[in-house]
């Protein structure tokens, strides 16, 4: 039966895995992902979840075991964070190349040594080239819903790619809000059992994709699958919304954008805070909207181009850095590439904030929103990239 109660992001993720009937869960603990796997261990110990939980000795093994299990026909779930994701790097290239629809939560946490235990997005963005679908979630509810959707997306024969629901450590992972856990029967109807038409390791029924003789072609197949995934993500989201009453607008969501000419673009938990700031500002008569980037891979290029027709200034908030880049954070650079071919390009501002795991405050968001509006008025970009945390905008924990 469906029920709603206070639930942290990590517990919601465990419920997501349980409702998706994940069969094999190889995992290695790392803060802030630990509560996720201990919740799963508890669900299994209580007999409420039926899965093989492999207590592996490191993240590299976790992902490798995930590949083996997925190829052998099991639905696989795992999760990691930060150093764990970095340690897993080599293994993370395997599922997309082998077309294995594993779901792994990336519980975002800053990378050492210049970072704490709290979130920034560099750990997940580090994996932007590996071929994993990345969907960034705002809160517990979205985490739970996205995991269920992730299996539908990854296991779609148009796609066959692994999916990473990403969510911020602490601000989502340990933050409790009322969260609705859907009925198992409903989820079962939405998500049929895992079946991979390319793979079977069972003796007598052995099949796997042929060894690629043309490597460029094989890689292009992954690229095409990524492109097809855009439509699949949107379709699955619509279906989910229809059945469960909650949807997330696919790859990106426009919030309070009626009649505005400038928007902030955010990703992850800061989006919730930004919603409150945008509402406040609109109440003051300031015409600024918000775009939540939910899908980073595949990148919503066409969608962003559509936005560019409506909005003259985009203020992209990057909770990550790319040292020595062409300019700014990873999201800003992606967006710039997406917008470059347009004749009438919007102005692009880029903000660095929340790096190394520090809080993204209302004041900081307010500051960034004001900058965006200022740029709309002047029509000039004063600073392409701004490190907001270097400014004194009040206390930040």
């Amino acid at each position: 039966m469906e029920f709603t109660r206070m639930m942290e992001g990590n517990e919601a993720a465990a419920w997501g895995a349980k409702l998706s009937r994940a069969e094999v869960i190889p995992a290695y603990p790392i803060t802030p992902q630990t509560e996720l796997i201990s919740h799963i261990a508890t669900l299994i110990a209580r007999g409420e979840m039926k899965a093989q939980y492999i207590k592996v000795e490191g993240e590299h093994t976790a992902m490798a075991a995930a590949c083996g299990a997925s190829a052998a026909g099991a639905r696989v779930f795992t999760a990691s964070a930060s150093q764990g994701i970095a340690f897993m790097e080599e293994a993370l290239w395997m599922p997309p190349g082998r077309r294995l629809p594993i779901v792994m939560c990336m519980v975002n946490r800053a990378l050492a040594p210049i970072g704490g235990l709290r979130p920034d997005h560099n750990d997940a963005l580090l994996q932007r080239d590996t071929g994993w679908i990345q969907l960034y979630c705002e809160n517990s509810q979205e985490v739970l819903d996205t995991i269920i959707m992730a299996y539908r997306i990854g296991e779609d024969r148009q796609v066959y790619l692994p999916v990473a629901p990403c969510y911020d450590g602490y601000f989502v992972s340990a933050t409790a809000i009322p969260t609705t856990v859907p009925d198992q029967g409903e989820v079962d109807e939405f998500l049929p059992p895992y079946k991979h038409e390319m793979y079977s390791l069972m003796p007598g029924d052995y099949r796997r994709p042929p060894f690629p003789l043309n490597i460029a072609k094989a890689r292009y197949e992954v690229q095409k699958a990524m492109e097809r995934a855009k439509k699949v993500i949107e379709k699955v989201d619509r279906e989910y919304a229809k059945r469960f009453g909650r949807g997330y607008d696919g790859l990106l969501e426009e919030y309070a954008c009626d009649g505005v000419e400038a928007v902030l673009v955010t990703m992850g938990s800061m989006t919730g805070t930004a919603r409150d700031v945008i509402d406040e500002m609109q109440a003051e008569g300031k015409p600024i909207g918000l775009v939540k980037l939910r899908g980073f891979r595949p990148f919503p290029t066409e969608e962003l181009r559509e936005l560019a027709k409506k909005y003259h200034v985009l203020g992209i908030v990057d909770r990550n850095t790319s040292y020595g880049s062409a300019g700014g954070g990873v999201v800003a650079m992606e967006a710039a590439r997406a917008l470059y071919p347009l004749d009438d390009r919007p102005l692009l501002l880029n903000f660095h904030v929340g790096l190394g795991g520090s809080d993204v405050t209302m004041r900081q968001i307010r500051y960034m929103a004001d900058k965006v509006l200022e740029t709309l008025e002047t029509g000039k970009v004063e600073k392409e990239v701004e490190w907001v945390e270097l400014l004194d905008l009040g206390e930040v924990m």
Partner: protein
Amino acid sequence: METDKLFDEYYEKSLLQGGTTCCPGCGGPLFWRMTLDALGPNTIVYGDGPCAMCAIRNIKLPTFGLHFSFVADGSTGIVAALAAKGRRDITVVSSAGDGATGDISFGKVSAAAERNENMIQICVDNEAYMNTGIQKSGLTPFGAWTTTTPLGKENPKKAVPMIIAQHKVPYVATVSVAYPRDLKAKIKKAKGIEGFKYIHTVMPCPTGWRFDPAKSVEVVRLGVETWAWPLYEIEGGVLKLSMKPKPKPIEEYLRPQRRFRHLTKEQIEFIQREVDARRQRLLENDGKRIIL
């Protein structure tokens, strides 16, 4: 041609397709033919990377591999998937070379042993990184030339089977392709045991050990006869020597291999003393529990 037809029929029945990409005289395909014979068709083979796995492309059973540094881990996933599906009838064989087993994935093999994963882990030991062009591994023996130990390796070989045995796994065995009956019996025994089984096999490598390929089987046989490669099993922690040949001088094993040709008389004597001491300890402990 009649002979061709004869062989085609044979390959049809065999679990190993003819025509591997291994070097002439490589022990790899020989080992796999014997092993697959013993295991039968209800088997999944996991492994990738090392050069003895060239033969894996010719295995007609389900195979899956990730890469060189992925030992005993993908197979852990396969074992879990089989458990999730309730398939207890399928044997999972996980294979790797000496460098993967003893160096880069040593922790992974150890962890799989500690978890007592239900699979047969095989170390195909040709005593160096051969696929990359003969570089020293943790399992290269003392004195052996490789491209990274041009003067001979300074340290002894890592005793992986004994280390794995200390994980209290149900079964550990060393085998050699020169003794097919012993090899097949051990593989069959491993198949019948629940939990983590570790099989360590010597893999003659004419290319890396630098001997005439015709002597492939002869060299590893000499390995056993000189006690350079003692064959034993450790079942339930109890050591049992599989054969106790009258020891031939170690020089007979070293001489055909040009990787040892630079060794001085003193060094050979040193190796002889080491081998003698180990033989002594093995004989003393034969039939005894050796797990601490």
